[in-house]
C-alpha cells in the first residue's frame, strides 16, 4: 500500500503499456498497403515471425535482472563499445519518437485541423510527454492502464457499429497477386510496429516481477496484434478496394461510415482520439528510453532533466524529416532496412555475449 518507489510498474500495467505502444500509430496509419486486400495476411506473418524475438529480448533481460539495455551493453562489450552501441540505440529511439510525432501531427493536419501548423500540434503533444517523463515511470504504467481501457471501450463501440457495414467479399480474392507483395508488406509490418518492441529492453528493468518479462511482452503484443488485425480486416471490408489502398488513413475513413443515428454522425472522431492516446503512449515510451539512455551514456544522476531538451529536439526533427505527406508515406518502405539491424541481429549478438558474461557475472 505504501509505496515510495516511483519507477516500478506491475505486470498488468506493463502489458497495457506494451499494447498501447504496439497499437501506436499503426491503429490508424497503415502506410502503403502493398499487399492490397491481403494485408491482413502480412500482419499475421509479421506477428508470428516476431514471436521468437520476444523470447530473445526477455532472455537478455533475464540474464541481468534489474539492469536495462544500456547497462547490459556496457557489461557485455566494455565501456567504449557499450557506449557507442547505446548511442546507436538512443538515436534509434529518438528518431522513432520524432516519427511518431510526425505521424500524429500529419494526421491531425490532413484529417481535421488543416490550418493549424504542425509545430503547434507537435508542441502540445511533446509537452504532455515531457510532463509524463518527469513524473516518473510508475505514472506511465498507471496511465497506460487507464488509457488502454478507454481505447478498448471506444474500439468496442466502433466494432459494434461496424457490423452492418461489413462486406467480407471485399477481402476476396485472396492471394490474387501471389505471395510476393504479401511478404514485402510483412517485412514492413515486422519492423513497424512489432520490431520497435526492442525499446522495452531499455525500460523493463523496472518491471516489478522480473521473471514475467516474456509473459508481459507476449501478452501485450498479442492483444495489439489481434486488435490491429480486426481493424485492418474491418477497414477493408467497409471500404473495399481500391479505395482502401489509396487513402492515407484507411481506418479513419472506414470509421467515418459509422454513425449513431441522431447522436453522432460520424465516428471519425473516435479514431482521432484513439490515435492521439496510443500515439502519445508510444511517444512517451520513446522519450523515456531516449532519456534513460542519455543518462547512462553521460553518467548523469537523473534522466528527468533530459526530458525537455530531448522533447524539443524530437519536435524539430519531426518537422525536418519529411517535407510532405507523400515523403512520409514513401519512407515506410525504406524504414525496415534502417531499423531491422537494431531489432534482430544486434540483439542476437547481445544475447550471445550476455550468456557468456552472465556466467562470469554470477560467479562473482
Amino acid at each position, binding site marked *: 500500500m505504501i509505496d515510495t518507489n516511483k519507477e516500478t510498474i506491475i505486470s498488468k500495467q506493463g502489458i497495457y503499456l506494451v499494447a498501447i505502444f504496439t497499437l501506436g500509430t499503426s491503429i490508424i496509419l497503415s502506410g502503403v498497403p502493398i499487399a492490397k486486400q491481403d494485408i491482413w495476411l502480412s500482419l499475421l506473418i509479421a506477428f508470428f515471425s516476431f514471436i521468437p524475438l520476444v523470447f530473445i529480448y526477455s532472455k537478455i533481460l533475464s540474464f541481468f535482472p534489474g539492469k536495462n539495455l544500456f547497462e547490459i551493453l556496457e557489461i557485455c562489450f566494455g565501456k567504449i563499445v557499450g557506449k557507442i552501441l547505446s548511442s546507436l540505440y538512443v538515436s534509434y529511439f529518438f528518431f522513432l519518437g520524432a516519427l511518431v510525432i510526425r505521424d500524429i501531427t500529419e494526421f491531425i493536419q490532413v484529417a481535421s485541423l488543416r490550418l493549424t501548423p504542425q509545430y503547434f500540434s507537435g508542441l502540445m503533444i511533446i509537452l504532455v510527454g515531457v510532463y509524463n517523463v518527469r513524473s516518473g515511470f510508475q505514472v506511465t504504467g498507471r496511465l497506460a492502464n487507464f488509457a488502454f481501457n478507454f481505447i478498448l471501450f471506444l474500439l468496442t463501440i466502433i466494432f459494434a457499429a461496424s457490423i452492418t457495414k461489413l462486406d467480407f467479399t471485399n477481402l476476396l480474392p485472396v492471394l490474387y497477386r501471389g505471395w510476393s507483395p504479401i511478404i514485402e508488406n510483412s517485412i514492413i509490418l515486422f519492423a513497424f510496429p512489432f520490431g520497435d518492441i526492442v525499446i522495452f529492453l531499455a525500460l523493463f528493468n523496472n518491471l516489478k516481477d522480473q521473471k514475467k518479462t516474456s509473459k508481459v511482452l507476449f501478452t501485450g503484443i498479442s492483444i495489439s496484434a489481434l486488435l490491429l488485425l480486426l481493424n485492418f480486416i474491418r477497414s477493408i471490408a467497409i471500404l473495399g478496394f481500391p479505395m482502401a489502398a489509396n487513402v492515407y488513413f484507411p481506418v479513419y475513413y472506414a470509421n467515418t461510415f459509422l454513425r449513431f443515428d441522431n447522436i453522432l*454522425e460520424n465516428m471519425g472522431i473516435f479514431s482521432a482520439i484513439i490515435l492521439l492516446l496510443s500515439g502519445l503512449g508510444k511517444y512517451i515510451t520513446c522519450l523515456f528510453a531516449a532519456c534513460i539512455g542519455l543518462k547512462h551514456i553521460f553518467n548523469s544522476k537523473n534522466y528527468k532533466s533530459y526530458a525537455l531538451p530531448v522533447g524539443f529536439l524530437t519536435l524539430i526533427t519531426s518537422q525536418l524529416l519529411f517535407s510532405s505527406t507523400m515523403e512520409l508515406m514513401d519512407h515506410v518502405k525504406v524504414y525496415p532496412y534502417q531499423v531491422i539491424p537494431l531489432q534482430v541481429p544486434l540483439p542476437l549478438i547481445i544475447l550471445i555475449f550476455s550468456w557468456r558474461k552472465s556466467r562470469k557475472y554470477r560467479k562473482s
Partner: protein
Amino acid sequence: MFVLTNSLDENIAFFKSTFSGDETFLTREFQSQNGSRFCLLYMDGMADLSIIANTIIMPILQMEKHTVINDMNILSTQIVSSGELKKSKEPMTLIDSIIRGDAVLLTEGVAEALIISCKGFKTRSIQEPEIEKTIRGPREGFTESLITNLSLIRRKLETKDLKFKYKTLGTKSRTKACICYIEGRADEKILEEVNKRIDSIEIDGLFGVKFIHDLTDDSPKSIFEMTGETEKPDVLAAKLLEGRIGILLDGTPTAMTFPFIFIENFQTGEDYYTNYYSASIRRITRILGFIVATSFPAIYLALVTYHKEALPPPFILSILSARQGVPFLSVVELLLLFFSFEILTEAGSRTPGYIGQSLGIVGALILGTAAVEARIVSAPMIIVVGISSVSSLMLPSIRSQIVILRLFYIIGAAVFGIYGVFLSMTVTLIHLFSLKSYGVLYMSTINSLYSKDLKDTYFRGPKWFIKRKRSGGEK
C-alpha cells in the same frame, strides 16, 4: 519566574497583575469555619458559577472546624466534590486553566493550587450539519467544543482500541487538537508521519482544521486536497475503522481525516444507510456527474467549432438558428456564463436563509432567459452550462477543483479541438496518478487501508459482501 509561595496575598497579587486589564478575571475570597482563607480565581463567562458554588465553595464552607490545611491533599481528596481536579504548582499551567474556564483554588499557607474543572461556557448544541445532510441515518454533527466531539466519537466506537491524543497548536491561540485513531487499524508509519508533521507546525493562531491541512500538505502545489473533512461523527467513525486517522480542533466542528484518496470524494455517509442498489446507482451517478461537470462543456465546444461533421444535421440547424445574431464566440459565451454562475452561487451562499437558495435558481433562470432574449448568449449554451454546473453541485468536496479543471479543458478545446480536450485530460491524469497522500497513492482504488474491506469503491458493496474485521493491522 514567579513561584507560588505560602502567602495567599502574594499569590493573588501575582495573578491579578498577570490578568491586569482583563476585567473578566474574578477573584472570590472566602473563609472556612475555622478561619482559613481561601481564594478562588476564575474567568467570568468561562467558569460555571453553580458548579463553583456547589462543589467548591459550599463544601469548604461546611468543612469541619478541626480540619487543618497544610497542603492540598485533604481538600482534593475529601472536601472538594468536583469531578475532575488536579494539583499544580506551575504558574503557566494555572494561568492556562483559568483561561480555559477552570477555577483555581488557593489557600493561605500552601504553595500549591488546585485546578477544578468547571467549564461552563456556552457552545452550540448538537445539530445536523448544514452541508452534510442525510435523509436517513444519524443527524448528529460535531460542535465547536472539542470534548463534546470526542464524546460523540466515543459513543460510536465503544472500544478500548480507540485512542485520543492531545496536542496543543498555535503559540497565541493555544488551541487544543486531538488526534484519534484505532490502534491496530491505523498504520504505524502513517501515525508516525502525522505526529511528526503536526509537531513541526509553527504558527501563532489556528482557527480551522484546514490550517492544519495547509501546513502539513503533501502536495501544496496540487489543486487537489490530500485530506478529507467531515462534520459527522458516524462518518468519522467509519473512516477510523478503515484505518484512517482523524484530527479534531477545539473551536471547529469539522474533523479532518487522512490519508485521503480521490475516490472518497464520491462517497457520502448516506450511502451506508440506503439499500445496495440505490446507493450504487447514486455513486455511479456521482462519478458520471464528475465527468459531465468537467468535460461536457469542453467536448461540446470542440465538436461545435472544430469537428462539426460529427454533429447530427438537425442539431446543426438548431444551433445555427439559436446563434443567429449572437455576437460572441462560443468560447467567450461559455466563459461568461460560467463566471456568472459562480457569482450567483457565491452571492446565494452569503445571503441569509431562503433568499439565498432561491437566488441561485431564480437568478440563473431569469438572467439566463433574459440573456438569450437579448441575444448575448445562445440557448444551447445555457443548457450546457446549466447541466455542468448542477452536476458540480453534486460533489461539494471537489467543487472548486471541478471549476478549475473545467476551465482548463475549455481552454484546451478552444485551442486544439478534441485533441486539446484529451491532452488536457491526460495532463490531469498524469498529475493525479503521481499524487500521494501520506504515502498512499491518491488514485488508489482500494478504499480501505485495511485491505480486508475491499468491495467498496465504485460500487457500494452490500454488507454481507464486505468481509469484516480481523484484528491486527496490515502494512
